[in-house]
């Protein structure tokens, strides 16, 4: 798309219905980044080797930075500021998928989640490059470099560990089996999908999922893993509508503990 030909340069040009759809998309993106960035930061100082500790922490920081940027965009669309959105909402107001809520587990789980989630994330941002809503396209451009590194990092790790020792192969396979239903939860359909597609804002979850499945299937199969057939999996849905796993509430309580000592205070 020509840089000067965005259909929507500002949300003020959009219908109320479309605005709601864009906000819904932004909330789920931001909440995913926030919660997964938070989870992945738990490895900082405790990673499997110093060098990887540093790399994984950088990517967790990138995720939080992306969350903040998306909340800022929501703020420009009339929502509250980034800190208030991230640190003071009730559990059922978060739109993150179940996948990001799960505890970090062992490094196999954390890496597999990193691979599956970041592949979806990269495709999502990639499709947003062509969004008819300029701020979304700008956002996608801004994070392109970061995401390239994230996907490279995750692919190298997955390919190498899946082909290494018997133990590591078995671990990666069982991590994959555990992750798949959760990962499909990323693509929980939204009632706004058709509208967003029609208006050229976003390609929609179903399209994203097909592209994602093809992409990860290639890499995982080449790495010697058995990719579960989509028809055999029940996706873990609910997160996008505020129904969460048992893990989200304690995570939020912990994350907001200091902030909530006095939400009016400046920290």
């Amino acid at each position, binding site marked *: 798309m020509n840089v000067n030909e965005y259909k929507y340069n500002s949300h003020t040009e959009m219908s109320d219905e479309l605005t709601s759809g864009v906000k819904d998309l932004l909330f789920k993106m931001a909440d995913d980044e926030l919660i997964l960035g*938070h989870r992945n*930061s*738990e490895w*900082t*100082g*405790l*990673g*499997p*080797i*110093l*060098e*990887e*500790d*540093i790399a994984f*922490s*950088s990517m*967790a*920081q990138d995720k*939080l*930075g992306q*969350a*903040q940027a998306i909340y800022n965009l929501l703020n420009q669309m009339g929502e509250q500021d*980034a*800190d208030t959105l*991230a*640190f003071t909402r009730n559990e059922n107001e978060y739109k993150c998928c179940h996948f990001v809520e799960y505890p970090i587990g*062992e*490094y196999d789980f954390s890496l597999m989640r990193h691979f599956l989630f970041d592949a979806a994330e990269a495709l999502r941002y990639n499709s947003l490059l062509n969004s008819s809503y300029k701020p979304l396209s700008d956002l996608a451009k801004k994070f392109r470099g970061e995401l390239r590194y994230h996907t490279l990092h995750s692919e190298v790790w997955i390919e*190498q*560990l899946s082909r*290494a*020792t018997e*133990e*590591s192969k078995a*671990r990666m396979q069982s991590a994959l089996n555990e992750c798949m239903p959760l990962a499909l939860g990323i693509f929980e359909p939204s009632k706004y999908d058709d509208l967003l597609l029609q208006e050229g804002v976003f390609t929609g979850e179903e399209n994203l999922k097909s592209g994602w499945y093809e992409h990860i299937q290639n890499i995982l199969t080449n790495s010697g893993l058995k990719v579960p057939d989509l028809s055999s999996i029940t996706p873990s849905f609910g997160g996008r509508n505020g129904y969460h796993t048992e893990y989200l509430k304690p995570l939020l309580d*912990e*994350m907001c*503990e*200091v*902030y909530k*000592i*006095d939400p*009016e*205070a*400046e*920290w």
Partner: protein
Amino acid sequence: MYGGGNIFEKPENEIQEDPVKLAEFEARILAGEKIEPTDWMPKEYRKQLIRMIEQHAHSEIIGALPEGTWITRAPGFRRKLALMAKVQDEVGHAQLLYSAAETLGKPREEMINDLISGKSKYSNVFNYPAVTWADTAVIAWLIDAGAIINQVANSKGSYGPYCRALERICQEESFHLKYGHDNVVFLATGTPKQRQMVQEALNRWWPPIMHFFGPSDKISVHTETLMRWKVKMASNDDMRQKFLDMYVPKIWDLGLTIPDPKLRKNEETGVWEYTEPDWNEFKRVINGDGPCNAERLAVRKMAEEKGKWVREALLNRNEMYSVPLS
């Protein structure tokens, strides 16, 4: 982050070095040149440097734990991101320093084994807990400030790889210091609750901060040699004085109380007077009986063990270990 207070071991017995090579070595240091890994060096120089750089590296990786305590609870994006970046930097510093120590011939695995077994020490302050969020602010400001004083001095030392690592470390620490100061300022100028938090944290951390640079150095032939070789760059007391001179006024500016009624600058001598820190406690904690020693080592051990399958999977057993270049 690293202070003085590292105890340099007395040489077990005098090692006879080649007098010609020793003279060349000392002349080089006197001329302000750096020593590089492949240069000839006295055995005692190598041994003391390994010891010092290793302790420094351990202090960084263990130092990631007290502040890491609050990594999942930092309030707001700005603090959350900054704390993550800071703790990450500490891990990065450990990486740089272990490499510098490795150039002297001790592999990283051996150093970490010595850390976990308690054979090798690290900075005493990290055996104290970060009880509240405000503790991380005080650590980031004042412990890092102390570390910078020590590290800037050490970066003018004689061993090339250590100086190069310190150069980058000091650059990053200056962000830590600014972040820590900013954090303390927000608390000290904030709500009564925030002020109380930071005052209590300062009360807790003042004694460890006074311990940070170590006890007064006993002037011995041994210390003199280490200073001549530019291994030890400043006396513990000098660094402590410098720290007090730079930071006590800044703490007082914020209306905080330093829990030492005797603390004052003698206007005639220009020297800070203070209650003598409890050096028995210092020794007790360094030898393993601090509030967090056991936890810190158990956590480090857990991290190494948890990561073992990852490292083992990718290990190429046909490879030989090489001492890194710098």
